[in-house]
């Protein structure tokens, strides 16, 4: 899960759509930039775009936007001058789902919060109000990155800090050729987009569960 991502395929779809709009309709269309440019922030939030376009709503699990049928999806967006009819945000929150509200009422937690609790070294915390809606949510992104993004740019940076700080030549050499560093480089090279999170919080989420359950 941490190394097999699919998100760039949506970007390919967006390029095809941009070409279509520019060629067929003669309007401008650009792929909305989704990679971070400052800190963890991209120039435009795909999550906000997805919510405003009615594709899903923000969840207690790492703020992931959950689609009502599929749950976790990756999103890409295009910005265009074509005057398309806008969609509207969903009227009903996808998260928390009914079983999660019931669980919260009984146990004071939800499946995702229980899988990665802030108070026990995890990243998530949250609360529901009496109407069963999210009244507070907390996501420790830094901790999630260090816990779950073990293959990719973050881990290369982590390894480089250690390697460059190591004064002993032989120890440095063994760090450079270690499995961890080789895998990290391999992820930069092979997996590229696929450096996802551990998604234990999504594994237990009831939304989209039936789509994930096959034979």
């Amino acid at each position, binding site marked *: 899960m941490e190394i097999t991502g699919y998100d760039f395929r949506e970007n390919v779809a967006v390029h095809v759509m941009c070409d279509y709009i520019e060629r067929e309709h003669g309007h401008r269309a650009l792929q909305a930039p989704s990679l971070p440019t400052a800190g963890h922030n991209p120039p435009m939030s795909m999550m906000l775009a997805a919510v405003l376009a009615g594709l899903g709503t923000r969840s207690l699990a790492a703020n992931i936007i959950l689609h009502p049928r599929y749950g976790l999806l990756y999103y890409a967006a295009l910005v265009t001058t074509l005057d398309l009819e806008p969609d509207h945000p969903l009227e009903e929150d996808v998260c928390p789902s009914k079983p999660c509200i019931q669980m919260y009422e009984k146990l004071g937690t939800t499946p995702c919060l229980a899988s990665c609790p802030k108070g026990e070294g995890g990243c998530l915390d949250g609360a529901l109000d009496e109407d069963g809606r999210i009244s507070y949510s907390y996501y420790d992104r830094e901790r999630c990155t260090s816990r779950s993004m073990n293959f990719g740019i973050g881990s290369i940076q982590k390894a480089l800090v250690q*390697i460059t700080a190591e004064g002993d030549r032989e120890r*440095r050499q063994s760090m450079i050729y270690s*499995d961890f560093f080789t895998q990290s480089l391999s992820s930069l*090279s*092979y*997996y590229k987009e696929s450096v996802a999170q551990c998604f234990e919080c999504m594994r237990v989420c009831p939304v989209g569960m039936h789509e994930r359950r096959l*034979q």
Partner: protein
Amino acid sequence: MTVSAAAARDRLAAMVERGGALAWGVADADAFDEAPEGFRPADLLPGARRVVVVGGSPPRAADWASPVHEHLETMGTSDRINSLGLKTAKFIEAEFGYYALFVPPGVRRGNRPFLSVALAAELAGCGSRSLAGPVLHPEYGLLFYSAVITTYPFPLTPPLAEPACPAPACVDMWEAEGETPCTRVCPLGDGGCLDGRIEDGRLVERRYDAARCTSRVYTHWIPGFQKGLELVLDQDDPEARKMVLYSSHFTKTLWSMTYAAQSQGQCWECMRVCPVGAEFRDKA
């Protein structure tokens, strides 16, 4: 949706062939005994029953014809077969409702791939292992492969009855000269990587110096980066560090790791001379 395994096989065949597969096959997930524990199909996907292998996207005839030796080493084509592998996994899940896991390229611990795609290709009857190393398809020779582990019980395709290597011409050459085209071009005893023995027209022994092949030919990719980084950090003088960091070798390494990505092929001199698939490497 219920379809017979034979009908499912036909739909899968149509999909992968449309997607550009030159070869494909289905291996039994329980047949991976020679793979170490932790690197077998069921270790990656509990309940695994089959491994679907798709092969294709070899270097084109023009790639073989290029006089620039860096071309083959940097312009790989294997990413296309990986995208077909991903599509195949998605197709199996969406069409048949069974789990299908794309085997990621790249390595896990110990520099070992998640699953040996070469073994999967052999078991699925796409080709056989060669003296030079790659699994050779009997018609096309060198192909790249991608594998998908699935719980769907597709009908199996058996391993090849006759190995693709050694080709008849290589057997003749071995009998006359005690070597084959690939061992001649990269002989283990003379600074190269390959050696082997043929008996009764069959390959009975193969020796391959993987470390030497890596250091000789994977000059631009991850090993190149590691070598470069080691060199940089060994320099006390900041100017010398800067020189290594901006050197054309290090620059090429960074390009190859990011843009050219998985395309870091070997030098493939051993494949250039291989008779299997030779007609596909040649065009007017």
